[in-house]
């Protein structure tokens, strides 16, 4: 299955990736090859086959809603590229 460079650009936008022209050309080619290979799955009739999201037969796992110790604000922010007044800091969003 061939995909176009426009589709690659659209997917990059969804994935929050900015690609160079060279990357776009290369990915158009490589993704087309991979998707062609993946189309092999269409040889199989999967009508009525339950999809497997997860191999274990488990449902939601609940716990008591109890207060427990957690990371301190200081430690939680220790890896922040920028912080201010106990918050993560990002470029201004609203003018």
């Amino acid at each position, binding site marked *: 299955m061939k*995909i176009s460079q426009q*589709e*690659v650009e659209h*997917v*990059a936008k*969804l*994935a*929050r*990736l*900015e*690609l160079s022209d060279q*990357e776009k050309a290369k*990915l158009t080619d*490589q*993704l087309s*090859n*991979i*998707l062609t*290979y*993946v189309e*092999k*799955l*269409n*040889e*199989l009739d*999967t009508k009525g*086959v*339950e*999809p*497997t*999201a*997860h*191999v*274990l037969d*488990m449902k*939601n*796992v609940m*716990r008591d809603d109890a207060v427990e110790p957690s*990371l301190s604000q200081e*430690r*939680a922010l*220790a*890896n*922040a*590229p*920028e912080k201010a007044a106990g918050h*993560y800091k*990002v*470029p*201004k*969003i609203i003018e």
Partner: protein
Amino acid sequence: MELYSLTIHELQEMLKKGETTSRAISDSVQARIKAVDGKVKAYITVTEAAAASQADAADKQRSSGSASPVLGIPVAIKDNMCTEGTLTTCASKILGNFVPPYDATVVAKLKGAGFVMPGKVNMDEFAMGSSTENSGFFITRNPWDLERIPGGSSGGSAAAVAAGECIAALGSDTGGSIRQPAACCGVVGLKPTYGRVSRYGLVAFASSLDQIGPITKDVTDAAILMNLIAGHDRRDSTSVDLPVPDYTASLARDVKGMKIGIPKEYFIDGMDPAVEKAVRDAVKTLESLGASVVDVSLPHTAYAVATYYILATSEASSNLARYDGVKYGVRASGAKDLLDLYLQSRSQGFGPEVKRRIMLGTYALSAGYYDAFYKKGQQVRTLIKRDFDEAFKKVDVIATPTAPTAAFKIGEKSADPLQMYLSDIFTISVNLAGIPGISIPCGFTQNNLPIGLQILGRHFDEESVFRASFAYEQATDWHKRRAKL
């Protein structure tokens, strides 16, 4: 024999008899790292000073009488498992400065048992790859032939074990990332059943497939590490609350009466004849030890790679959305607004393979393609899982090659992603089905490159996998060979 080349159980015997100390073992490993890591390049971070004080503490604790099997033993940790206070990069530039504020559960368990951490080892970026060539920092080399790849993604773990740069290591396996590098480097690697070992603190790649496991010099060491890391963890809701058996106990049993399945789909055109011969000989050895061999069929094997590359990339595209340059990791400078900050940080921080997989996964999940790709993949996953369910009605374990060839040359497959993906053809189904699988050494090619035998078991039946592997190992001496560096 130098201390660094010994196994956990050999060192434990020596420690018990007072023939060595944890400090001497740690120093031996650190000296070995200094001597050979310039060539092998297994380590991203070496924690020499911390290792020395952990070893001293272990010696002190031993003199007070308590001794877990890994007390004072250097175990290297793949750089996608969080280590409190120690850099954890996932071999990605985007996490190049990340120092976790907490330990992964497996790390906390090993710390509780008094292990020594020699450092953090290299991998394909975000565990995406089969050669460790996709590391964002540098390529790790195979200790048996420095021109060749060590396998991947846990290439640093397997190379460090094979080179004597640690006594054992932890790796993670999403589509073969423990077993294939173990095969390439001539060591033992176990991917446990999905849910057997907690994933808490393991940087997520594909959450329904990822599993942590040991990479060791022999089967006994793998069982020893499994005893320590397996078990339920309330911090990982997919970890299973089942009792953990003593895996070392399953080593005491022979294979008489055991049924070993051989799937015809795993002996294909294009595989190295030396690999096929070594694996067939290994099966004969197991037969001579009293096992019976049964032909089985796993008819959907040919669809596993395609299924995996839809499902794993879809999960990855979602998991890796968190790297946005806001909360941790590297932020691009000079962004003009928030969207630009995301775009720049991600585009500069991720390497080519990671971008390719995010793109493929985003495409598969995007409007209009979900049913054709993602849902189809999940349905084929069901068929692959059923294949194993059927086969395991007839046999106790299944034996196959771990990979179709021995380690390939650096650069040989990096131009064509699809060729690289196909090197995982024998390991990927195992993750899709969620069953346990081990790779153990079963021979060498004419070029003196190790070959791996893969043994698979039923869900939560690591014991049969250990039993068959140990019986084979005791009848052979492949695992005693060490790479000359």
